């Protein structure tokens, strides 16, 4: 499954890019699974191991990290929001 990933704030800075397309392997069912996959790449991707500091949106709707990604087109990973 192809998935658009988007990164914001210090997640974007740590990775060094604002997003990418990933081919999600079988067995990666939730955003948490995806984060583990990304963290395993090492270097800047180590930021994805800090899951307690991360939030996500699936297809532009906030979701818990435990949410399933089946059928999703776009998953955004970011820190807690600080706007307003």
């Amino acid at each position: 499954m192809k998935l658009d990933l988007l990164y914001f704030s210090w997640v974007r800075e740590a990775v060094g890019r604002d997003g990418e397309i990933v081919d999600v392997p079988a067995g990666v069912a939730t955003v948490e699974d995806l984060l583990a996959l990304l963290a395993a790449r090492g270097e800047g991707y180590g930021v994805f191991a800090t899951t307690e500091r991360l939030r996500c949106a699936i297809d532009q709707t906030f979701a818990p990290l435990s949410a399933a990604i089946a059928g999703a087109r776009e998953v955004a990973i970011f820190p807690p929001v600080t706007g307003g």
Partner: protein
Amino acid sequence: MSILIGVQAADFSLATELERLEALGGGAVASFTGIVRADAADTVALELETYPAMAEQALRAIAQTATERWPLLGVTMIHRYGRLPVGARIVLVATASRHRGAAMEACAFLIDWAKTAAPFWKKEWQSDGAAQWVEPRAADDAAAAAWRAHDPK
């Protein structure tokens, strides 16, 4: 119900936005404006990052929730992004209602929720060129959570 949502780099006109709400005939218009404040002595600007595809619909969902909880005639939410110097406006939330209490309560709700349920991130720039991302505040989470338990008049 008139809902106006803006996610934009440009500044906005308080007169234009509030007059639009005044014209709805409700008798009560409330507003809150957030402005870049020099928190540390050497903060020179805030940089607001957003998730463009999501921001407008997130703000619209917040506005919609407000209209379900209070008898409102209009809601305006405008949130800026980009680099904003000290003194610049960041956000406007404003409401029109027949009832002053509804207008003011909904306004407080909108800004509390915008701080925790809209995809914006703040980075603080200092005069020496250093910058750091603003950490979320527990008080903001608590303010938003309080509305979930709150029974509006």
